[in-house]
């Protein structure tokens, strides 16, 4: 008997310790060119918006009509100034802060709410699941922008308010995705084992179901952030976003649009370019992460 036990153990035991999972994971992610591009763009924007103002100092609080509507390059304003005299390049940085902060925070908030909602609905099942998912269906039926516009007319829009509101309208998609994961994961034997040993449901959800849905969750989160940045731009473009002197890229577009026909391209093109670029960057990162988490694609 001991012979028998020894041989197969020897056959399967000496698998070399797989070296540095972190490094391999990075290699797999960086093999996707677009994802690397997205990551570089994102890092660039973070440096540009958050460190840029330290090096390129401009007054973004007080209007300065003496320097209004300057063309790029005039009097040291690299991208010119707008109709009330704010430096456009400096303003892009400040606006970018707002857009990125709201986008990231709202995306994370939506993902958190959605993940827990979906994980609980899928795990519990039965009528609880039905009720929870009908709430999601009802939420999806109401256009998010419509809700946002109503809320911005009632309350004075501020960054925290916008984060909460956007977070509260965009958790529905992650909820659906995670519910589907949760339903398949709850019948896995390691989840059954937890239930059989008398472990709590919260343990099953937080330690097993959510960690094992992390691929879906993170990939979706990147798309959520991109969507949130677009939504902020959209709301601000309609004039319902953060109020002056604070601004974001969408608000810059609005204030610039009336001068476009006067040839003031620098008021809208840079802001529009930033919005497009960062949304594309997040989507590329999301695609890269999806390939990374997709187990099927792993063995080439």
């Amino acid at each position: 008997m001991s012979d028998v036990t020894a041989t197969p153990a020897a056959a399967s035991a000496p698998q070399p310790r797989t070296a540095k999972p972190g490094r391999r994971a990075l290699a797999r992610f960086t093999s996707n060119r677009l994802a690397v591009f997205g990551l570089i763009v994102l890092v660039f924007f973070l440096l540009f918006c958050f460190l840029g103002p330290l090096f390129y100092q401009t007054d973004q609080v007080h209007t300065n009509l003496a320097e209004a509507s300057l063309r790029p390059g005039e009097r040291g304003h690299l991208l010119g100034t707008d109709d009330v005299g704010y430096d456009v390049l400096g303003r892009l940085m400040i606006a970018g802060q707002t857009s990125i902060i709201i986008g990231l925070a709202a995306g994370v908030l939506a993902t958190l709410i959605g993940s827990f909602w979906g994980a609980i609905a899928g795990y519990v099942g039965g009528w609880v699941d039905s009720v929870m998912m009908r709430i999601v269906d009802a939420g999806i039926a109401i256009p998010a922008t419509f809700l946002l516009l109503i809320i911005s007319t009632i309350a004075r829009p501020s960054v925290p308010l916008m984060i909460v509101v956007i977070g509260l309208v965009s958790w529905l998609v992650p909820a659906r995705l995670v519910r589907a994961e949760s339903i398949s994961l709850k019948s896995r034997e390691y989840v059954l084992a937890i239930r059989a040993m008398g472990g709590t449901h919260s343990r099953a959800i937080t330690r097993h179901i959510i960690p094992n849905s992390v691929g879906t969750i993170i990939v979706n989160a990147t798309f959520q952030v991109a969507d949130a940045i677009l939504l902020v731009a959209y709301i601000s473009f309609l004039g319902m976003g953060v109020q002056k002197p604070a601004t974001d890229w969408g608000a810059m577009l609005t204030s610039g649009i009336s001068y476009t026909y006067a040839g003031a391209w620098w008021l809208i093109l840079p802001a529009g370019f930033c919005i497009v670029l960062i949304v594309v960057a997040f989507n590329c990162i999301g695609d890269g992460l999806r390939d990374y988490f997709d187990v099927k694609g792993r063995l080439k």
Partner: protein
Amino acid sequence: MSSETTPAREPVLDITDLTVDFHTDNGVIPAVKGISLTLYPGEVLALVGESGSGKSVTSMAVLRLLPGTAKVGGTIRFAGKDLATLSEAKMNGVRGKDIAMVFQEPMTALNPTMRIGDQITEVLLNHDICPKDRAWERAVELLGRVGIPEPERRAKGYPHELSGGQRQRVVIAIALACNPRIIIADEPTTALDVTVQAEILDLIRGLAAESNTAFLLVTHNMGVVADVADRVAVMFRGNLVEEGPAERVLLAPEADYSRRLLDAVPKLPEAAWSEIAGIEEGVPGQVLQLDGALSITESAPIDGAVSVSDAEFARAHGTDSALELIDATVQYTRKGSTFTALDAVSLTIARGEIVGLVGESGSGKSTLGRAALGLAPLAGGTVNIFGQPVRDRALLNRRERQARARVGVIFQDPGSSLDPRMTIADCIAEPLVVHGWQGKRASSALRRKRVAELLDAVELPRDFADRYPHELSGGQRQRVGLARSIALEPGLIIADEPTSALDVSVQASVLAVLRELQERYGFACLFISHDLAVVHDIAHRVAVMYRGGIVEEGLSSDVLVRPQHEYSKRLLASAPSPDPVEQARRRAARAVLAESVA
């Protein structure tokens, strides 16, 4: 056997020095390292080995169905032609026509949206075997030949209307359609229940004898080999270690590895076939629910006597049982229709006793295990663990939660029983985190110490603690599952097919560890398995389940030697034995039993 006459004949398949290497990102992995085989018309050659031995790769190489990363060397001659030199179009003419394939999973091998008859005529017309107007007729004839009842009607039906065994018959009919010279069958019965497996093997044996078609049977099951094979080729890590007539290899293996492999296969003792098959029919008042105690009084037990007295004691005192099911009923309702998975089943497991639960798929044995774990909704009756009722409830109270600390569980699939995102240490320590250890909260130092102890107990190296489940082999993962189940030193372990996904030699070592732990800790165990020999190996008592009920219960040495119930007899006669002599006896008994049913 036929091997004496084979050299005179021309082989239909001649494999020389076959090598297969897979070129992967991690370098070249050799799967087959130069094997030579010959296959003669009308014979069944079994290619056996454990997972990773290269047996399936060999069979796929014959059909040139390997993925592009595989580099094939050596020659494969089919009736004198070198298959490697054929163009892809010519090769397609060979596949299905001259060499047909039967796959493991009959559920996915058939197209669910096509009528069965059409799936057969498709092959016939593809290879221009017969004119269009004759094709349907031929399809019906083929269905009849593989033993499908009412072939005219069935040909117009769809695959979902058939049982798994019948579907595999249809797959074989499709393989037979063009009168191929060779049929390659890759684990054709592995997905089927033993009684169905026995029928399919009968069919294969019959076809090989009457049609002169050669079968290349790829299998891991020595019992299947003993049942149908004329010759056996044993593979181990890409090498052919032994080849010869089935009887010789099975009874007197020459290679070291074949001997070890055969030793690892659990064997049932010789059953009392004269009694079973010769028994008079319709004994009045056939005891359907034989109690353990009852059968003890009738036959003198030798081993397991201690545990039986435990069982009697438990029954007399009512509460001193590890697990007690009283008229437990489990029903599943789906879209208005109710399915009774467990029908008023009563079973008692005494402390320290291992009870095997056998039966085929759908018999309710897994449901019984789940009910015992409080994971199945009880429609009636009670389930008690150490006297404490267990129910499937959304929220457990403190007492119920504590009761569950006394039960450990081991599941079948080593791939899904451990959370892939947890280290082995976290997996094993999870029960400690949930329940604490020896009345204290389990601190991380305490957990680390206990995990090391448990890894020692299941004979795994301590440094496995920091690894992740995917770095371990199936057998190692199952040991981790075992370590987790005993983490709290429970009084009862529910093991649901713990070894059925493992190779036999790995199974033997996992069972050895389980047995040793049971002796050390003295827990009771409900051991659910479809493999009678494994149950006989490990269990003191055995209960046979059939269609949601227990039809027979008693000492393993009794029930698995002298079964009383008709179904148990059939089950025992269908269980394949690696001993060709015993297997022949079982086949004869099966025929007698089938006759007596008809």
